[in-house]
Each structure stands twice: as structure tokens, then as C-alpha cells.
């Protein structure tokens, strides 16, 4: 089991709310990633970071933002949730080629 954690695991929230999805890893990995995945579909990279104070947007346009103030912590924030944000969000970390994934947060915006 990889030492990467995501909270909450499930979140149901109303439109317009601000939410933060937490991701932490205890492996000291420099590289961290956020993916969005709809059921039965591929993963889309929405944000990544190569170290503290380094963040980049991924291949899929997203209205979310991220920060990387500490190596172990890579939170994702949605300022105003919308039903189109309903999806599963997966966090991963890496110190090489292999990526280690957290269990995911399933977000439903009503």
C-alpha cells in the first residue's frame, strides 16, 4: 500500500460552495499530480507539481486551483462548485516513473 491519503473519500455539496480536496503523502516524493476521472473513463491530468512552490496546469482545462507549500501536501480547491464538477478526483505522487495513487475523492455537486 502506498502512503498517500485523500480526504474526504466522498463529498456531496451544493452548487456555489467552495471546497478543498486534501492530498498528503509521506514518501517525500517531489512530484505530485491531480487527475479527474469519470466512471468507466480514462484519467485526465488537471494539475501537477514538481516540488514546493511549483504548480502547472494539466492537459484538461479545470476551474480548480492547487498549491504546494509543503512537499507532502497538495490540496485542490474549487472556489464555486458546479454540477459539471461531479467526478472522481485522484491524487498521485512519484519520485521516478511509477506513480502512487491515493484512494480518490468522489465528488457530487447537486
Amino acid at each position, binding site marked *: 500500500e502506498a502512503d498517500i491519503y485523500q480526504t474526504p473519500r466522498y463529498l456531496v455539496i451544493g452548487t456555489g460552495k467552495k471546497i478543498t480536496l486534501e492530498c498528503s503523502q509521506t514518501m517525500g516524493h517531489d512530484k505530485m499530480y491531480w487527475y479527474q476521472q469519470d466512471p468507466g473513463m480514462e484519467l485526465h491530468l488537471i494539475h501537477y507539481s*514538481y516540488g514546493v512552490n511549483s504548480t502547472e496546469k494539466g492537459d484538461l482545462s479545470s476551474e480548480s486551483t492547487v498549491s504546494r507549500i509543503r512537499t507532502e501536501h497538495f490540496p485542490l480547491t474549487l472556489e464555486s462548485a458546479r454540477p459539471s464538477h461531479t467526478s472522481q478526483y485522484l491524487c498521485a505522487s512519484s519520485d521516478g516513473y*511509477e506513480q502512487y495513487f491515493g484512494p480518490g475523492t468522489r465528488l457530487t455537486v447537486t
Partner: protein
Amino acid sequence: SQQGEEDPQALSIQEGENATMNCSYKTSINNLQWYRQNSGRGLVHLILIRSNEREKHSGRLRVTLDTSKKSSSLLITASRAADTASYFCATDDPSYSGGSNYKLTFGKGTLLTVNP
């Protein structure tokens, strides 16, 4: 896009049978990886094969890579009910030159169901 495409989209077999999944990609790669995802969970890395390798084994897994056809296959031998999951191939950015900027692009996956 560097996206891999898995084939078939879904595969249902009996326990003990072999399962073969294929992945095709569009441009050159440095390496290709296979991941497994159990329903509603995160992905777990299975195996990595480099562009200069043709075949690799890990337990009941056998991966092949044909860079001339831009394709890879994952074979699971003597399948078990616990192998039921989605399997994804992931390719890297061909412009990656060994620095820290490493990204993967995942395919749509093959859903494997192993019936007891």
C-alpha cells in the same frame, strides 16, 4: 495526443483462463506502464517496459512492446476472481529528457471480469 487506447473495452473470462489486453499509442515513447484499478479506488502500478525492451515478466503478468506498431499487450495468465479490475496503459511524453517534468497520459482502460 499521446493517449493510449486499450482494446477490448471489456473482457469477461472464467477463472483459470488467460486474459490479453492491448494498448495502442500515437507517437514515440520512452517507456510504457500498465496500471490496475479496482472499482472506485486509486490505480496500482503493475509493470513498466522501456522503449528498448520487447518483453517483460512479473509473476503472472507478461507485457510485450512493439514500437514499430506503437502497441503493447498485457497478458495475465491463470486468472483469478481477484484479478477483476480495470487495466490502463500509460505513456510518457516523448520530449522528456530525464529531468523532473515527467507526465503520463492514460488510456480509457479495459474492464476485466473474471468469473469464479
